[in-house]
């Protein structure tokens, strides 16, 4: 197997990506697919905002609005935010811990394809008879009542992409547990690695309830089970619990890696060690832990009783404490540092007040009796967009700028980046700040329109204008990416000059086998230490240069997913009496899956070795000299 990627045709490149098990390439694929879905979700949001621009608008129909709203939430959470975070986890974490790759490269690829095809499946519903329309929470009574196949697309699509997420979660856990370079103890791991670790653990525990919930719903719709049919003894509240036992940890699954990314950015551009590192780690774990004990704060108005509400209210409030620890640690990281306002830092600076504002409204909602007023009103919409957009999306945009040189060896334009930031940031506050008041003024969420003369017109207009600004911001970002790609100026290693962690020590472009020799980690911020000691090489190696063992590429993950994709259509149409052919799809798709699994398990796959001469040749090719660090 030739490892050296020389000039290739388009087809060969596509094939390369379809079969790759390289975490760096998979990271790029997550980035592309995630961006695609983000833009899709954003367009859905824009359509909603246009509809809500003025009272009694009829830009879209009520039914279509519900589809937009449902797909916006689902797409953004499952298909945009999470994959984009996975993009950075894939691109960065193995390098941060000095690993060759993730623990299960094959599964990494499988995870990506499952997510991707799950997302495609879900979005095909637009063309195949209607998208899901029961909200991203898909509460059981409405989703069972909903006609057509929308909900089935939701259930099967999320099931498939959820499986991919679960696989990725386990993969990152094992990677971080087993593949750290010598010397990288747990308390020397960069914070992004730590948050990836905790977030993956949350995935492992939070996704099974969703899987079960979705399965129960599928059984109700497909096989006449009665889990949620109260006339048959079922109970729809079961769905609500299962969904939120998943759903609440899910928001921390999203926000913790974002915290990690910001931690890296703050330390780098304050030229200072992260303040209170160990308490940051502790807070991360604590948030993860508490995150599992508060889910019922989404159900205060369901009527669980005063005692349950009181317990969950207080438990929820507790989360403010570890989160506050983090906020103050970031502030103190800047304090006494040397703050350079680059674009990533700008995003980090914008993040603090935005996220705190979103967090504290969360605590307000945690006060159960107050939540009786706030629940299902626009106040909630304002809260979660403040934490999600002000936390996660800013983190994603900031890290896109921050890690662009690591992933592509190019630097996004700082000038355009600042334009993007200000457009997006102002637009964001404009859109969502007024929504707090809309909620308090009595506007329920998930409404396709509202009547004039209820005092809601002005703020809705402001909100829409803000959304337009955000859209322009996103477009400038895309323009920035295109310009940068066309210019194609290489920037080399540690382009920010202040890189602290191992990923910045690796020469650019990163060879496919990552580090030529496994590095030795001598402390927190190991690259910073080496730089301070004047080590030109940027790292100390833990082993002599020797053959490198690499995993083989494989098309099987792709094929397995295609099998599952086909089978999902079979399952979906199997509910219709008039589509007898669907059973062939189901059986055929599953057959394809099993054949692939059979091949995988009956063929020994030992990977291959890159010999020392090949390593040297590759370095010669990449850097024009051996050794390679410049």
């Amino acid at each position, binding site marked *: 197997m030739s490892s050296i990627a020389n000039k290739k045709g388009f087809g060969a490149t596509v094939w390369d990506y379809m079969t790759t098990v390289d975490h760096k390439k998979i990271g790029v694929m997550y980035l592309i697919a995630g961006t695609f879905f983000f833009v899709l979700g954003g367009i859905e949001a824009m359509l909603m905002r246009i509809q809500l621009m003025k009272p009694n608008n009829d830009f879209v129909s009520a039914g279509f609005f519900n589809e937009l709203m449902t797909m916006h939430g689902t797409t953004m959470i499952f298909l945009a935010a999470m994959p984009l975070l996975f993009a950075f986890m894939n691109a960065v974490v193995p390098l941060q811990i000095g690993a060759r790759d993730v*623990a*299960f490269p094959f599964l990494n690829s499988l995870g990506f394809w499952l997510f991707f095809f799950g997302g495609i499946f879900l979005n095909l519903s637009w063309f195949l008879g209607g998208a899901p329309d029961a909200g991203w929470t898909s509460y059981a009574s409405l989703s069972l009542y909903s006609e057509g196949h929308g909900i089935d697309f939701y259930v099967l699509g999320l099931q498939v992409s959820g499986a991919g997420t*679960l696989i990725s979660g*386990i*993969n990152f*856990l*094992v990677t971080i*547990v*087993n*593949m750290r370079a010598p010397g990288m103890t747990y308390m020397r791991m960069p914070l992004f690695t730590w948050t990836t670790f905790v977030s993956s653990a949350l995935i*492992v*525990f939070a*996704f*099974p*309830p969703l*899987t*079960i*919930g979705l*399965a*129960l719903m599928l*059984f*109700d719709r497909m*096989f*006449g*089970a*009665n*889990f949620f*049919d109260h*006339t*048959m*003894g*079922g*109970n729809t509240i*079961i769905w609500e619990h*299962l969904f939120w*036992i998943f759903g609440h940890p899910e928001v921390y699954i999203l926000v913790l890696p974002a915290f990690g990314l910001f931690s890296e950015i703050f330390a780098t551009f304050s030229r200072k060690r992260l303040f209170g590192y160990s308490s940051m780690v502790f807070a991360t774990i604590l948030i993860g832990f508490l995150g599992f004990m508060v889910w019922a704060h989404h159900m205060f108005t369901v009527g669980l009783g005063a005692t349950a509400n009181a317990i969950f209210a207080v438990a929820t409030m507790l989360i403010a404490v570890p989160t506050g620890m983090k906020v103050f640690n970031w502030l103190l990281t800047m304090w006494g540092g040397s703050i350079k306002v680059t674009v990533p830092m700008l995003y980090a600076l914008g993040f603090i007040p935005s996220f705190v504002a979103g967090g504290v409204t969360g605590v307000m909602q945690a006060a159960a009796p107050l939540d009786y007023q706030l629940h299902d009103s626009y106040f909630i919409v304002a809260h979660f967009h403040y934490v999600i957009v002000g936390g996660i999306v800013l983190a994603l945009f900031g890290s896109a700028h921050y890690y662009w040189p690591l992933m592509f060896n190019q630097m996004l334009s700082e000038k355009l980046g600042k334009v993007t930031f200000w457009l997006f940031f102002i637009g964001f506050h404009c859109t969502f700040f007024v929504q707090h008041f809309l909620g308090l003024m009595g506007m329920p969420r998930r409404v396709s329109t509202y009547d004039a003369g209820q005092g809601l017109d002005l703020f809705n207009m402001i909100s829409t204008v803000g959304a337009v600004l955000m859209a322009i911001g996103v477009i400038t970002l895309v323009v920035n990416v295109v310009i940068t790609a066309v210019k194609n100026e290489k920037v080399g290693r540690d382009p920010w000059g202040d890189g602290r962690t191992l990923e910045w020590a690796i020469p650019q472009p990163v060879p496919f086998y990552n580090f030529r020799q496994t590095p030795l980690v001598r402390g927190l911020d190991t690259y910073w230490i080496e730089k301070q000691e004047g080590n030109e090489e940027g790292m100390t190696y833990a082993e002599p240069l020797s053959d490198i063992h690499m995993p083989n590429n494989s098309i099987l993950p792709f094929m397995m997913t295609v099998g599952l994709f086909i089978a999902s259509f079979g399952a979906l149409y199997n509910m219709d009496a008039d589509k007898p052919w669907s059973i062939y799809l189901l059986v055929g798709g599953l057959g394809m899956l099993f054949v692939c699994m*059979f091949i995988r*398990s*009956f063929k*020994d796959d*030992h990977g291959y070795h890159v010999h020392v001469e090949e390593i040297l040749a590759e370095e010669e090719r990449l850097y024009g000299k051996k050794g390679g660090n410049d």
Partner: protein
Amino acid sequence: MDMNKQFTAQTWPDHPEQATLEGKNKFVGFWIFLACEVVLFASLFATYLALKNRGPASMGEEFTTQNLFELPLVFVMTMVLLTSSLTSVYAMYHMKNHNFKGTQTWMGITVILGAVFLALEIYEFNHYVHLGFHYSQSAFSSAFYTLVGTHGAHVLLGLCWISSLIIRNSKRGLNLYNAPKYYVAALYWHFIDVVWVFIFTVVYLMGAM
């Protein structure tokens, strides 16, 4: 480490399943997967408990846990599955001693016991369905079949998995590439047993009272 290398009992490492990085990854990854399965079954158990004996007004007394379950059959099933857990321990014992034949044989016995268990379960389900207690009969029936059936599906998967291990490796012999495969399959089998312990306690015994 050459994973296909042939060992003797004397050079065979103490923890063959974790002697390679791949093995170690598989080991940790599989345990984490099991932790994930714990929560998966938790959701099913919780749903079952919430829907136990719930049905439409017309469900009738005969389809409650008290009247439906037959403990003797469940007892036999439990014994069979518990024993199969021990036989897989034997298989692992032989694997650690680098006794490939022992490993294969005991794994084979495990499969047979698992198949007996599965057959009994199918018989049981079939019996209930004939009584009229079918999947759509009530919320309770749906929850019961889904919980116990998911366990049954795990048994089936375990059977397929272990049998294909036995077949695929029959020519290869024991090495560091397939030792972790045997090991995690055995772990899986124990886990199935753990779940069953709760099923017979929570579903059958607590139901029969």
